[in-house]
């Protein structure tokens, strides 16, 4: 490709099917695919694939002499058959991107690729945008000129003519393509910017295979956060697709109650295998929760809470909260228990913030407005939370010892699901 051309953009649809001719002008075939190397924000086209009758041939992009009307090759180039299996860190655009679903990271949704937009710069062709709009569809159908003409005749101001539904290549995540180390790194970085709830929704919409591919690309932390937002059945299905070691790591990262829900769907042997692969303290917490039915207070509760003795001071309580801030997703109150673990009262965050730092918790604590037993049903827990406006409901055993708490977000999720 001549290097002195002005930089300009060009559509993939305008290249596909172009004649590929040798240096002597003889037609060799028609352009069928372009292969890019991943890693760069705007990856360059590395090779081209053309088809002659039923056979495909591949050539490095550097073999292209010029491109106008036809794709003319330099003299003495040797086309080779393309590799049979996908090559790592290479993406074949027609095979793996065009007409396929990709994740639009910015819009946090799945879209289908209608066309690709290249930047032609110093003889190189770089993928700049993905066209997911209606206009791209019209262009692929070969009607751009007719439709554009008709619309500009009737509604010259139509937004169709002015706006392009382009997504920057940097902000999309292909899912039907070959793996590779660089790919995974880029993917992890890009996907980590999605909100876990959005990521979870995208995973629910993908087909099984794509879902597994996407899940495999997430780092442990992102995977755990996303899984906390999906249904237990899906969590179980996804955990089965990664090596047990990684699955155990993900389960450790998840809130214990969610991890227990996911494990409860698995056959017993697999459950034991994963529990053994997990770190001891996390595994024990989860094992305890597994003993309760999923939709009971025991199944919904989390053992992650702040538990203090009545002699502890307000300052100590605040220090304890700060110390454990990372592992506790929600802190609404601290629970005051005696030496036997029996729940004596609670202090809300407000009590602690406005209280004198030197006062003991025993002096400012209030009685817990409601407690539930571990075998209490969802309805009972929800009723207690509603009646007393509680953000978390303490769960106690027959002796009054504190076992955990059910937080309002878990109650809400269950109530909405049950509808």
């Amino acid at each position, binding site marked *: 490709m001549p290097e002195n051309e002005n930089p300009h953009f060009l559509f993939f649809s305008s290249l596909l099917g172009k004649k590929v001719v040798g240096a002597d002008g003889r037609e060799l075939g028609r352009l069928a695919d372009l292969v890019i190397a991943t890693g760069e924000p705007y990856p360059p086209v590395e090779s081209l694939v053309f088809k002659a009758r039923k056979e495909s041939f591949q050539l490095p992009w550097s073999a292209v002499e010029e491109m106008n009307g036809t794709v003319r090759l330099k003299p003495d180039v040797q086309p080779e058959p393309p590799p049979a299996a996908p090559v790592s860190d290479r993406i074949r655009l027609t095979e793996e991107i065009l*007409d*396929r*679903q990709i994740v639009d990271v910015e819009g946090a*949704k*799945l*879209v*289908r*690729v*209608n066309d690709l937009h290249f930047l032609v710069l110093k003889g190189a062709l770089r993928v700049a945008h993905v066209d*997911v709009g209606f206009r791209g*569809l019209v262009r*692929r*159908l*070969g009607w751009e000129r007719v439709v554009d003409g008709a619309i500009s005749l009737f509604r010259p101001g139509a937004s169709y003519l002015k706006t392009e539904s382009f997504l920057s290549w940097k902000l999309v995540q292909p899912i039907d393509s070959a793996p590779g180390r660089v790919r995974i790194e880029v993917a992890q970085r890009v996907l980590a910017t999605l909100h876990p709830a959005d990521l979870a929704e995208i995973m629910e919409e993908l*087909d*099984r*295979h*794509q*879902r597994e591919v996407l899940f495999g690309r997430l780092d442990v932390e992102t995977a755990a956060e996303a899984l906390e937002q999906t249904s237990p*059945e*899906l969590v179980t*299905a996804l955990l089965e697709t990664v090596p047990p070691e990684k699955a155990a790591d993900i389960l450790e990262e998840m809130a214990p109650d969610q991890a227990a829900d996911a494990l409860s769907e698995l*056959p*017993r042997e697999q459950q034991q295998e994963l529990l053994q692969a997990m770190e001891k303290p996390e595994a024990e917490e989860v094992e305890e929760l*597994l*003993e309760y*039915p999923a939709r009971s207070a025991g199944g919904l509760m989390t053992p992650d809470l702040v538990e203090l003795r009545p002699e502890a001071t307000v300052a100590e309580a605040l220090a304890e909260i700060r110390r454990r801030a990372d592992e506790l997703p929600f802190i609404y109150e601290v629970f005051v228990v005696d030496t036997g673990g029996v729940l004596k009262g609670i202090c809300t965050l407000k009590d602690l913030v406005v209280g004198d730092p030197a006062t003991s918790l025993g002096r400012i604590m209030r009685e817990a407005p409601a407690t539930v037993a571990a075998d209490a049903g969802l309805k009972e827990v929800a009723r207690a939370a509603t009646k007393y406006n509680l953000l978390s409901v303490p769960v106690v055993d027959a002796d009054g010892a504190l076992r955990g708490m059910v937080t309002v977000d878990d109650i809400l999720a269950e109530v909405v699901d049950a*509808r």
Partner: protein
Amino acid sequence: MPAEVEAAAVRPRRSIWRNVALFLAVVGPGIITANVDNDAGGITTYTLAGAQYGNKLLWTLIPITVALIVVQEMSARMGVMTGKGLADLIRENFGVKVTFWIMVALLVADVGNTVAEFSGAAASVGIFGVPTWVSVPLTAVAVWLLVLKGTYRQVEKVFLVACAFYVAYPISSFLAHPDWGVVLRETVTPTFELNSGYVAMLIGVVGTTIAPWMQFYLQSAVVEKGIKPEHYAHSRLDVVVGCVITDVVAFFIIAACAGTIWKAGIKVETADQAALALGPLAGHHASWLFAFGLFNASFFAATILPLATSYYVCEAFGWESGIDKKWGQAKEFYTLYTAIVALGAAVVLIPKLPLLKIMLVSQVVNGVLLPFILVFMLLLVNDPKIMGKHRNGPWFNAIAWTTTVVMIALTAWLVVVGVRDLVAG
């Protein structure tokens, strides 16, 4: 772990109960698709087949059931193994142009079918004296609200109840007291008449039973349900049971009309006329049940067809879809859905509109579309890149291709006859 859970875990894996539980978990898509298949158009066709030709077309139900199972099984298998809908697979493997035209044809055919459903609903309640201008808008609004305002679980329950109501046909058939010995004998005795009326009716019965939208709907429903490959055997059973139920209902409709209307020599041209004619012959209960069945079928199909159509069109073009999305998020989806329902209902309300002709057009479009869909399906299901080891075996392929060729021949005839009738006026 509580005692009963422990007991369940140590039970042998292949026990009958485990199989039953698994079957119940995957059941649904096949049975619902098959029941929607017996929609207003289907019931009309079976009614007329029985009323005009007696039991002479009953034997065709056996080969039709086999063909239906073969085609639907491939859809379900593709859905389970790839996790993708048919529109998805066609777009990814055959490109934009092919997809576009298939979607246009599907849209036209399904709007036509929706018109048929609304006119079926209007005709059935017409028997009880409700005028069309009341029943059609009410039905349309009910359909629209049920799908858009109901939750998925509510809608599924309504659908399953609607499936159960098909029992109206067997009951009204028993009320009609046909000679069951004769009926059963004719079911297993192929007969053939070489007159154009008989052939047209035969093609009509085949065409109404195997319609293009069904393959799209079933495959998407199987995907939506998230059935795993290891549970495919149960899903296949769901499909087979569904196909058999469809044709059992068809069997009872034909038998009821043959044993009464045909025997009495009464001329009927629509399903509601048949329901009325059943009154004096088989008693009012049979007549009412027949009309009720027609309303149930029309309403059920009027709910699913526009919804399913909006789903595949959006799937093919990559627009967001789903009834759990907000209007702003899935504009194309909601616009399409509302437009199909509104158009379907509005057409029925236009006075003096040639309804039969519109249905004929939609039948012709269905007929033109079906061969393409079947061929695409066979190419996809035999592609090792897509299906891996779950491709068709040689025997299955032989049956599937034979079915396809026969279907192509029959629908080609239907299209030729349909176009001729349209041109002739």
